[in-house]
């Protein structure tokens, strides 16, 4: 080994504490980068393979009833490759162990032997046998949540008939990776399941012999999706066709895409912060290193080493740290990426996992973190290379200080000399102090972010369940009923109060933009469910016009007073122009897709009587079992959502988020400590001579400690407002930046997040100060003062 290389290793060992801290931060940064991008790539690749292998359709549509004889005609639509028809119906299930009715979507199983779309991957058991009236295959998530295995059974009410259903298989489907009951915030695997039955059996139950109510299509390569959708809509209009849609409107696909995009976006926000902090830390380390190396640089140059050789020598120092950090990060990131991808794959119930880590990701990690290191090192390495040997061999001249403006303030004279030293040190290097301040602020911001994210989720849950949707149960009817049905409903055991609503599918258009949405018609002044205004306060429904969520209004580019076009996809399929009369709060996807309207106005626009499609209920908890039994046996009710159960599911989800908060908080705490400790260490080393002089003059070690601590505390204090603003901004970026038009969690940062960040930041100051106190206690006055000579 070259002698100079040995020197580098010795120097590195001498600064092992700081070097290790920086290495660790680089490691964490690279690991998170590799993990996130690796996971994104793997999930996308797995999803794509899954879709291809199991023939996930491109276009979906429901109809009321269409004859099978239409299929050959549908096949002739230009661009269509394959058509697959089926039957799908909402049902209510009665599962032992669950009091409340469970929602099910019963779907005809892909037919034997036929090349069909949206095929199943059987995990356990087998497919249903032809004509088997009681056999079903269920989704794995539903089976796991309810501990169903082949051989288990439960009851279901199919068109008024209570039937025993025996599970014969457990399956996965690309169509139902992610699926929830409309009207719930998150999937609840226990209370919602997809069941596949033999098609002939279903056709008989639902009176769809030789007909279908569900259709899926695959497109030929390069076919136009919108053209096919247009033709399909036209051909199926007379069969009660409800507007065909592509993958982007498919709930499972859209949710999955949204989550993958969110993961990808969050890393693109986090990475620049890591890179900035790393460049800053390396800059600080090198500043100190080159300063202490001055005389060695002089000697090396006097011996004939060139500027380039000197630059390379000190460059290697940074290279070692960055290389070690990146290597640790890549190894850790690959391991973490695989684990996280496995976690996601299990969460999404993918039948297999295709873990891919593109070399591009690794190259990106090496290049960006290498650049951050180079950026941090550049100025100092250049300074080392440019030092004149004669100048370098002399001890550095003492820094030139001057009075500054703050000294004209009367208070200045009242301060003691250690405080003067501390303040002048800060103002002597305003750039560096500002960098430190920014470093601390940035670290603090990163600490606030995870709390911002989990806090926002928590707040959203509270808003939804305690402000907007306060009912105990929501029931949906098989078809519209007169509002008198409410009178019948309140006669059921345990129902204290019922409020009817009508949900209607419609196409909303403004300018050249259009969306399939659900119009929710309610009577003004309902107390169980209430629309919320933009500041999440309950509001009264305007009598006329529609209320759009803020996100939908923004997407359409409309505001209050603008006219939008509504094409009802049910009933007479009328098209109406109607003004926007209010803007409501938007959170998650649900509010994006829901339009609020006065029930009477809605029915009037559709030229229909006083009808409702479901009701929100307040129930007497002591009577709930009787009520549930009654609901399970009521054929006219095809969906029951328990809001208590939904709340519990959401709370569980929040717990998961909190776990991530702890992990992210740990990373951020490492950054905070790294920045503060490095800064304290450098500030101490730079002023060892001054401190030794003070000890010589009779100052105690705690009085010297005061200078280091107060400087650090003052900079931290000044960084605090910036850190808080930065934390808020970053959280906003993370919630808004990762929000797409559908998924959005409004930012809610509680004061606690700032409190905890402050506690951690000042805790790091205290901890770093203790480390410095230890150094002061070990300061050898004689030796330090001798080195001056």
């Amino acid at each position: 080994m070259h002698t100079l290389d040995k020197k580098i290793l010795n120097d590195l060992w001498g600064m092992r504490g700081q070097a290790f801290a920086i290495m660790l931060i680089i490691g964490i940064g690279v690991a998170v980068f590799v993990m996130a991008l690796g996971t994104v790539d793997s999930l996308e690749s797995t999803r794509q393979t899954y879709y291809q292998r199991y023939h996930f359709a491109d276009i979906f549509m429901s109809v009321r009833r269409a004859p099978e004889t239409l299929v050959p005609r549908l096949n002739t639509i230009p661009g269509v490759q394959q058509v697959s028809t089926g039957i799908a119906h909402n049902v209510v299930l009665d599962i032992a162990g669950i009091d409340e009715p469970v929602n099910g979507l019963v779907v005809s199983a892909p037919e034997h032997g036929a090349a069909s779309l949206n095929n199943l991957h059987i995990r356990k058991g087998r497919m249903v046998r032809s004509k088997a009236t009681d056999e079903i295959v269920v989704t794995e998530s539903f089976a796991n949540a309810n501990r169903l295995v082949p051989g288990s059974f439960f009851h279901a009410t199919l068109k008024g008939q209570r039937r025993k259903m025996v599970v014969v298989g457990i399956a996965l489907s690309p169509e139902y990776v992610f699926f929830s009951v409309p009207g719930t915030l998150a999937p609840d695997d226990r209370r919602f399941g997809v069941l596949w039955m033999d098609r002939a059996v279903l056709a008989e139950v639902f009176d769809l012999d030789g007909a279908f109510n569900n259709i899926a299509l695959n497109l030929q390569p390069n076919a136009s999706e919108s053209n096919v959708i247009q033709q399909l809509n036209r051909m199926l209009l007379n069969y009660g066709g409800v507007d065909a849609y592509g993958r982007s409107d498919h709930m499972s696909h859209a949710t999955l895409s949204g989550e993958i995009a969110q993961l990808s976006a969050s890393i693109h926000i986090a990475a620049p912060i890591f890179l900035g902090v790393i460049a800053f830390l390396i800059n600080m380390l090198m500043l100190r290193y080159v300063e202490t190396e001055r005389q060695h640089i002089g000697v090396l140059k006097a011996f004939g080493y060139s500027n380039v050789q000197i630059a390379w020598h000190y460059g290697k120092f940074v290279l070692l740290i960055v290389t070690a950090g990146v290597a640790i990060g890549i190894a850790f990131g690959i391991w973490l990426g695989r684990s996280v991808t496995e976690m996601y794959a299990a969460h999404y119930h993918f039948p297999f996992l295709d873990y891919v880590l593109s070399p591009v990701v690794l190259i990106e990690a090496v290049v960006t973190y290498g650049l951050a290191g180079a950026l941090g090192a550049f100025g100092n390495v250049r300074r080392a290379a440019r030092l004149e040997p004669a100048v370098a061999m002399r001890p550095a001249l003492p820094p030139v200080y001057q009075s500054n403006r703050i000294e004209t303030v009367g208070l200045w004279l009242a301060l003691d000399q250690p405080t003067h030293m501390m303040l002048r040190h800060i103002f002597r290097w305003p750039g560096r102090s500002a960098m430190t301040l920014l470093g601390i602020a940035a670290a603090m911001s990163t600490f606030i972010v995870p709390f911002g994210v989990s806090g926002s989720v928590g707040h959203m849950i509270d808003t939804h369940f305690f402000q907007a949707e306060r009912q105990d149960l929501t029931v949906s009817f098989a078809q519209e009923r007169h509002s008198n049905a409410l009178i019948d409903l309140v006669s059921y055991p345990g129902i204290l109060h019922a409020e009817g609503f009508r949900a209607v599918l419609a196409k909303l258009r403004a300018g050249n933009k259009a969306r399939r949405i659900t119009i929710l018609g309610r009577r003004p002044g309902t107390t169980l469910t209430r629309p919320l205004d933009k500041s999440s306060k309950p509001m009264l429904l305007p009598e006329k016009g529609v209320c759009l969520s803020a996100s939908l209004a923004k997407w359409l580019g409309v505001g209050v007073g603008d006219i939008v076009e509504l094409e009802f996809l049910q009933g007479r399929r009328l098209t109406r122009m109607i003004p926007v009369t209010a803007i409501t709060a938007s959170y998650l996807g649900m509010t994006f897709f829901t339009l609020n309207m006065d029930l009477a106005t809605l029915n009037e626009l559709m030229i229909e009587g006083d009808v409702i499609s479901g009701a929100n209920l307040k129930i007497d908890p002591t009577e709930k079992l009787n009520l549930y039994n009654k609901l399970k046996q009521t054929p006219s009710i095809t969906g029951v959502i328990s809001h208590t159960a939904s709340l519990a599911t959401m709370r569980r989800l929040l717990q998961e988020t909190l776990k991530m908060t702890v992990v992210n908080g740990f990373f951020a705490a490492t950054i905070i400590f790294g920045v503060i400790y490095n800064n304290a260490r450098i500030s101490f080393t730079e002023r060892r001579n001054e401190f030794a002089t003070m000890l010589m003059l009779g100052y105690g070690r705690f009085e010297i400690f005061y200078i280091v601590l107060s400087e650090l505390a003052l900079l931290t204090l000044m960084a605090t407002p910036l850190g808080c603003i930065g934390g808020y901004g970053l959280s906003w970026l993370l919630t808004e930046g990762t929000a797409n038009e559908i998924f959005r969690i409004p930012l809610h940062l509680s004061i606690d997040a700032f409190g905890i960040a402050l506690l951690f930041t000042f805790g790091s100051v205290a901890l770093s100060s203790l480390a410095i106190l230890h150094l002061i206690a070990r300061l050898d006055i004689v030796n330090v003062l001798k080195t001056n000579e």
Partner: protein
Amino acid sequence: MNTALDAEQSILFSVRDLTKVYRNDAIEVHALRGIDLELKTGEFIVLLGPSGSGKSTLLNILGGLDAPSGGQVLYRGDDLSRFNERKRTAYRRESIGYIFQFYNLIPSLTARENVALVTEIAPSPLSPEEALTLVGLQNRMDHFPSQLSGGEQQRVAVARAIAKKPATLLCDEPTGALDSATGVIVLEAIQKVSRKLNTTTVLITHNAVIADLADRVVFFANGKISEVCNNTHRRPASELIW
């Protein structure tokens, strides 16, 4: 003016069989090999000798910056080697004034503030202004070290050392980094204040000419005192030329 030593002058330091060994891994360096010396109140002593002969080690031990390996240093009857950290700090704070070759001023403080650094913690100090006037820097009080010449910086160091009215002034090569004219000005300041405050002054130098300032000259060689000379003809610093 009292130039000769009175027999009745009280003994300030009493050094008995003082040894100092520095250990660095397997290597032992004997810096002091049994020193016996007494320093009296108001006495001006010059330590002469080659580099590594033990002068600075003795000065550091007397100043409470270093602890002896063996022997005794009594300061007004108290054994310095038994002082704990707190007592040593108080001792430095109240009784010792130190001047180094390289001034060791705090670059971020003005001349006045550098002196105030000491007066703020000493029990009954001179004011920074008085101390700076004593060394002839009354017009440079608000200058930062970087705005002062080497000689001026060293005079600030002198003012800082004597502002606490220390019983002992320890000077380690105070003129080592100065030209002769500037050196003389600094020595004048040291001589003036030590007389005025009746301070016991111990001054290390390589420059034999400076020995003429002393009441006693102590010669060091190889960690031991090789010779002690009483100087019957002390000269004022202004007369020194080198």
